[in-house]
């Protein structure tokens, strides 16, 4: 007997890949990062993917809100939420199924970028495979954190545009925190730095997988998923 999470996950992933929007978003993701990556690739003349890894978090700012904005919003909008939540499935199972589906799409998008890795294998030499693996790992974890924010944003509104903007604003704050450190009073700067996602991503990408980074990103994922479950529960009490 399959679990509710896996049934919902399968439904979500298959409905995503049955719609043209999925392919447009994925191709858009690939084109944008390929353009920016390859345009400087031969100028820098280094056999690594570091530019790609610093580029993807920026593209994430738009890509992840775009794929998560419909997760719950669509169910609320088409009233299928009533159908779904009167079946024997808990709110947390719904959220986790949806979240994992979003994460799968992010993983698929990252898989597409492996094309750069293979071209690197052909033209480059002296490639640090370890750095590339940890770089991808970092991107996947950060993607998961953003997807959790996106899942939450889609539970609070029936409007996909609103969900997109809320998700964008929240992850933009996480993104910008360590880039504004010079404007922040000294005693706050270490806090800001710790709260910024990029700081932790940089650590993981360097291959230093510290428990602090994992705990930080894990807490963000847990916090936003918990908020999503609570928001769904609150709809019963409106």
């Amino acid at each position, binding site marked *: *007997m*399959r679990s*509710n999470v896996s*049934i919902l996950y399968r*439904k979500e992933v298959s*409905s995503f890949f*049955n*719609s043209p929007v999925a392919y447009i978003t994925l191709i858009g993701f690939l084109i944008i990062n390929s353009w920016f990556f390859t345009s400087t690739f031969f100028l820098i003349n280094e056999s690594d993917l570091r530019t790609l890894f610093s580029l993807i978090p920026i593209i994430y700012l738009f890509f992840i809100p775009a794929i998560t904005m419909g997760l719950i919003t669509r169910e609320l909008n*088409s*009233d*299928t*939420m*009533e*159908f779904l*939540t*009167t*079946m*024997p*499935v*808990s709110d947390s199972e719904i959220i986790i199924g949806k979240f994992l589906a979003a994460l799968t799409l992010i993983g698929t998008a990252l898989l597409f970028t492996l094309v750069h890795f293979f071209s690197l294998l052909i033209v480059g030499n002296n490639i640090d495979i370890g750095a590339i693996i940890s770089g991808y790992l970092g991107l996947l974890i950060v993607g998961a954190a953003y997807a959790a924010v996106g899942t939450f944003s889609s539970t609070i509104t029936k409007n996909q545009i609103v969900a997109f903007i809320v998700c964008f604003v929240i992850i933009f704050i996480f993104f910008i925190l360590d880039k504004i450190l010079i404007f922040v009073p000294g005693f706050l700067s270490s806090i800001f730095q710790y709260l910024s996602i990029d700081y932790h991503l940089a650590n993981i990408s360097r291959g230093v997988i510290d428990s602090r980074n994992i705990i930080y990103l894990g807490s963000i994922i847990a916090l936003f998923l918990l908020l999503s479950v609570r928001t769904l529960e609150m709809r*019963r*009490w*409106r």
Partner: protein
Amino acid sequence: MIEVRNLVKNYGDVKAVRDISFTVKSGEILGFLGPNGAGKTTTLRVITSFLSPTSGNVFVDDLNVFYNSMEIRRLIGYLPELNPLYREMNVYEFIEFVANMRKIEKSKFKSRLSEVIELCGLKGIIHKNISELSKGYCQRVGLAQAIIHDPEILILDEPTTGLDPNQIAEIRQLIKNLGKEKTVIISSHILQEIQATADRMIIINDGSIVADGTIEDLMSSFKGKTRLTLELRNATEESISKIQTVHNEISLADIKTQDDTVLASLEYPNSLDPRQDIFNFALENKWTILEMSRHKTSLEDVFRNLTIEGGADA
């Protein structure tokens, strides 16, 4: 058995359901009747765990919606008012998805599916996309979804809205058949709907129950009047008003003159039949009766009386 106890549901300041209580026995078909916005859907949504009550409780057997929501949901098959379906799926995928969520074993799914296809008349559309289906077929898919796990309790919120008369007749027959072995709650704002399917009905208006009983009970408890409409020639409004001399329980409800005829409506208790006396009275006064028609209080009037005038005397 379903028991709704002192249920209250407020949406902010709006009181959707004000303290209602009723029970539904096992194997009973209960009709839930009321005008739009009376609180029918809200009540059903509380029973199905889609909404939580502001106060009060709902019990299904010994389970209650606060602590045993999952168990209750397993017992219930629910067709929501808006009949939401995943429009991007085809009918088979959709039913399979529901069957998986309802934990129907793979080995049993095939045989159950063909039963449901037979019951709901889904033959020939099973591989069509839901977005291509007509309203009537969508409603059947919604019904199939509600009964796929063979639930003990079936809750149908306005199951025949938007269907053509043939489809309505089919769906009613289907509900009656299902009701032979299941507890069914069917809601509607159309009286005939309930009359045709239910054993017992509850009339709800503005969040409160105004009547509860079998159709015969409701008819007899409502002290109705008969209305007699007369179209007369050679009569004047003045002379007609003397008609009360025939019998003192007859009252003149309405009178108007149209060209050379007078239209008069008389009312008298159902126990009385003064038509012959009225005919003789007309003869005495040399009126010509062009038309005389009697209209007995129907359940429709009971319903209208209870829900429009808010009459609480039933």
